[in-house]
């Protein structure tokens, strides 16, 4: 469904991605794990066209998207929940959700999706008119995921949804990601530092080091892999 082929991305003269290739199949949950600064967030921003690749190709359902502007890529159904959540601080919870529907034309269906989001995260319904900037970290993460769902993604790209959250909230968020994958048949590409949780959730995983993919396998095998256990699971 989503293919990256030998993608190189640069920030000025610094090469952040060094020829990475990734495949995400329809309906899967695939995770990309790696340390800080490995290039995980850059991978997502490159897929979304925010930092376009200098060379290599990216295909979405067979269509090359590596030269498309971000809004066209989003319109195709690749929607990202970025690192740090990036909630619009001076918009209410409801307005943030509405921003997620920016490219949609089926206005009548939107209310149904907002109800679905409020069903997933009842706390957001209570806070619907509160400004996004005043929410707690966990609530912001819930809102960020809900906002992405408003665009009816075919592939949901999640960047470190567990960052800075309490273990109980992390558990809840991961359960919801699973639920979205199963109920909405949304393909999920999950970038995480929290390798243990991510691999338990995912079908397959990629390990990234210094801008390169160094390992790829099923999530189960990666959990048992000696290298991965030492480097990322602290076991």
């Amino acid at each position, binding site marked *: 469904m989503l293919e990256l082929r030998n993608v190189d991305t640069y920030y000025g003269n610094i090469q952040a991605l060094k020829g990475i290739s990734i495949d995400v199949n329809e309906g899967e949950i695939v995770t990309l794990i790696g340390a800080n600064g490995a290039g995980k967030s850059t991978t997502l921003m490159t897929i979304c066209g925010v930092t376009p690749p200098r060379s290599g190709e990216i295909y979405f359902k067979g269509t090359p998207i590596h030269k498309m502007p971000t809004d066209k890529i989003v319109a195709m159904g690749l929607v990202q929940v970025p690192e740090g959540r990036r909630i*619009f601080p*001076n918009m209410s919870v409801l307005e943030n959700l509405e921003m997620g529907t*920016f490219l949609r034309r089926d206005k009548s269906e939107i209310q149904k999706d907002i109800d679905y989001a409020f069903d997933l995260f009842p706390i957001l319904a209570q806070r619907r008119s509160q400004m996004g900037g005043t929410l707690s970290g966990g609530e912001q993460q819930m809102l960020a995921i809900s906002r992405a769902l408003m665009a009816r993604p075919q592939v949901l790209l999640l960047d470190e949804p567990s960052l800075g959250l309490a273990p109980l909230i992390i558990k809840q968020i991961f359960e919801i990601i699973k639920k979205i994958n199963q109920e909405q048949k949304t393909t999920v590409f999950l970038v995480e530092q929290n390798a243990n949780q991510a691999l338990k959730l995912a079908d397959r995983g990629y390990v990234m080091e210094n801008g390169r993919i160094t390992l790829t396998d099923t999530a189960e095998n990666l959990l048992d892999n000696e290298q991965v256990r030492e480097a990322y699971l602290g076991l």
Partner: protein
Amino acid sequence: MEYFLELSSSGLVRGSIYALIALGYTMVYGIIQLINFAHGEIYMIGAFVALIVSGVLTIYGFSGVSILILAGLIAVIYAAAYGYTLEKIAYRPLRNAPRLSPLISAIGMSLFLQNYVLLAQTPDFLPFPALIPDFDFMEPIAHIMGSAELVILVTSAVSMVALTVLIKYTRIGKAMRATQQDMTMARLVGVNVDNVISTTFIIGSVLAAIGGVLVGSYIGQINFYIGFMAGVKAFTAAVLGGIGNIPGAVLGAMVLGLTEAYAAGYISSAYEDVFAFGVLVLILILRPSGLLGKAVTQKV
């Protein structure tokens, strides 16, 4: 008391004009953190286009109000085109450059546009016809507020209400607010940020041109240099209110206009600029983010 009211009315008129221009500064700053120093020139070009169009229309026998409306309309369209082009050629290529580069580009565009009008038109002041008619119903209070002043106040107020509605309720308005709050995230929900930036320049230019036409007709003369001082004052108003903040720009403009009017009326017109910029210095010392430019509480 009557003198006070007269000064207040003249202060509010100045304030409205500053506000129309200041909105363009503050909106552009809010979205791309650029002080568009060429913005005052758009206002000046608006006034020149209106002058030329009204000259042509007079030859064809049009009269007062119809000239004002037609000339205003054409001025607005021209100014919008200038604003759009300005962004496209002077700022867009520098989108990812260090912040100083577009600023220098802005100053360059300001000088270029001034000199372009100087060469294409004239260095002298040109008389601007009084296009705003005298209303009979304003007669009883004409010594406090004249018809032209009323028209300026009403036109500015209507423009500002229209802007507020646009930003609050329309699709492009929401896209503008989203872009202002987080440009990358706006792109990630599918906003075409380039279009938003172009639209912002167009809206700012339209407001400035409206100001230019009104001022031309009110003061009765224009030259290529009027955009510079008006631009500096409007920029001051935007900073006074808190740059990037839309209600702040209007409030700052009113405070500035009234300060100038009272200083000119009670002290001496030679001191009006001293007081105007004095207020700015005071505000920047006491409230560096401007009157309404408060930092938003934000959890990370």
